[in-house]
């Protein structure tokens, strides 16, 4: 299993730069998830690693080898596509065998490899079937089989779960996690679903508009977002971002209420608070009030949407039985324990 190293990777469509210089190392055996809004370039970046898109500038190395100009099949990568991309006119057996045959592997060895892989993924009974006669989950397994059989240095996944229904998606997600554990393989996984990103990744790469916004473990990305974009993108419901200043007595809201914490000389900052850090206030501790516009009851928790006096929208995560109704004015207390502060340039201020 090999590492993937991107240095100064850029991609242009005509004059439009869609990947604006990415430096990134995926260590051997690591599972890295590329996540970002649609159009951020995450799939393009993956396809550049695969060799399906030209790398206009910069270098791509896989397992220590410069593959920037190598054709896809000579890079030691295998890919699982969003819509499986199984060859519809071939049986599962032929789908698995196709790449080996192209590589000139002898016949009986092809057969042996296919049998082995199929046994491992429990798809032996599917081998004679064509994709059209399989369920979504079965196709997915065959697609994974087609990737495994080539014993690649790196596995690439291009949103492979997005077309499955919710229940199957959870099952396949755990299957991929198990696969990663069993094979100890290097994997790069692209998704727009942050739950997928958080649950699968060793490290997450957050992309936006062709740039890397942050690279870190799921915990880092969640608890210490590097900038406002990551803060707003990761986490659902999204982090509350409140304008504030750093006063002599600490973080100060526009209303003048001093929350304490980091001191300063009146610099404007943005205070980021996860929805579970906004609490219903007891009588005299109210630091912020808002009008309840929507309450979403999700069972064991409720999501409360508020509009503060200055038009600021707030989201609060409450216990399922919280007694709040639409139209009520709600007093809130802010728990600065997990708060993030962002400077005027949008970057996170060093914590602590």
């Amino acid at each position, binding site marked *: 299993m090999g590492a993937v190293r991107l240095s*100064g990777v850029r991609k242009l469509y005509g004059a439009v730069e869609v990947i604006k*210089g990415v430096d990134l190392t995926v260590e051997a055996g690591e599972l890295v998830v590329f996540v970002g809004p649609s159009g951020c370039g995450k799939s393009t970046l993956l396809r550049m690693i695969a060799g399906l898109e*030209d790398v206009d500038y*910069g270098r791509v190395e896989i397992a220590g080898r410069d593959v*920037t*100009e*190598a*054709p896809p099949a000579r890079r030691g990568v295998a890919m699982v596509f969003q819509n499986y991309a199984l060859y519809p006119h071939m049986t599962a057996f032929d789908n698995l065998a196709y790449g080996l045959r192209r590589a000139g592997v002898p016949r009986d060895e092809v057969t042996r490899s296919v049998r082995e892989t199929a046994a491992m993924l429990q798809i032996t009974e599917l081998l004679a079937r064509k994709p059209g006669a399989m369920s979504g989950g079965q196709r997915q397994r065959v697609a994974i089989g087609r990737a495994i059989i080539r014993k690649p240095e790196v596995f690439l996944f291009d949103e492979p779960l997005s077309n499955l229904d919710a229940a199957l998606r959870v099952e396949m997600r755990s299957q991929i996690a198990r696969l990663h554990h069993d094979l100890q393989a290097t994997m790069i996984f692209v998704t727009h679903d942050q739950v997928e990103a958080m649950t699968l990744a060793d490290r997450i790469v957050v992309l936006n508009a062709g*740039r890397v916004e*942050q690279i870190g473990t799921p915990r880092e990305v969640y608890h210490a977002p590097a900038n406002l974009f990551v803060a707003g993108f990761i986490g659902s419901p999204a982090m509350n971002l409140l304008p504030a200043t750093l006063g002599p007595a600490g973080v100060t809201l526009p209303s003048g209420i001093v929350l304490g914490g980091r001191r300063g000389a009146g610099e404007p900052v943005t205070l980021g608070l996860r929805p579970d850090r906004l609490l219903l206030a007891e009588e005299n501790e109210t630091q912020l009030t808002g009008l309840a516009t929507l309450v979403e009851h999700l069972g064991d928790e409720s999501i409360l949407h508020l509009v503060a006096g200055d038009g600021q929208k707030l989201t609060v995560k409450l216990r399922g039985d919280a007694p709040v109704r639409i139209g009520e004015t709600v007093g809130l207390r802010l728990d600065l324990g997990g708060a993030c502060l962002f400077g005027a340039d949008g970057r996170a201020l060093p914590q602590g």
Partner: protein
Amino acid sequence: MPDEATLTGAGPPPRRNRRAGRGEARAGVLFALPWMLGMTVFVLIPLVLTFYIAQARFQITGPPKWVGMQNYEVLWADPAFWRSAQNTLLYAAISVPLKLVLALGLALLLNRATALSGFYRTVFYLPFLMPAVAGSVVFMLLLTPNAGPVNVILEALGFSPPDWLLDPSVALWTLILLSLWPLGVETLVFLGGLQNIPRDVSEAADLDSPRAWHKLVFVTLPLITPMILFNLVIGIIYSFQVFTQAIVIGGTTGTPAESTLMYMVVLYRAAFRYFNMGLAAAMATVLFAAVLVLTLLIFRTARGWVHYEGESR
């Protein structure tokens, strides 16, 4: 934490990689090569040559002789040119819109599922498969005075049918009638458009107004304007080139009394009866210009009335 700062900063411009990673670009050119060759040899070069021949006296054998605009002057003075141009324009101006309306009407009628839908579709499509020669010959027989079934039926209904083929004031209308028969392609194109209208849009229109014509005018028609444009452009281009039906019914002289003399027939006559290639080429360039101008004009106005759905592929 690695980020982009190292790259966008100053420094020597990085080397652009070769595109060796992808054979796709090369393959694209290779796969298109035969056609690019064919298009060059059979379309682009002949197109240029036509404009050249149009300015020459040329009898197929022997070398062409440069005569400048003389062929166009001859055309200008040729009554057959004017007569045929006028006939063809009239033919197109009536036949194309009429055909569009009829095809649209048929498509609307066809746009419901009944046990006989397949049968109707087949019937409306069949005339398109009829070779134009055979169709025209059959029409001549159908429209024969006294013994033709069309006249027999019309007389039985109390009409006094005209002399379809011999009355110079009617014969062009006979050609137009003949052009309306094979409207299966247009109908099925419209039907495809109608059936592509999402069910929810159609149902929303039903809820918005109980009147069927509201839905037709405000929902259905706007949504199939791309098909109307398609049929209109193709229809005009083809009706300008009408040849087979005209030569079967009117011969090369456009009988009766040049009333069915079509532009392509005069062109054919010039090229292959009188072997005056220069004159024929001049006519071809005029046709080219007419089609070009009309097509551009239609596409120009199309922006105003053709509705393309953003997300439909």
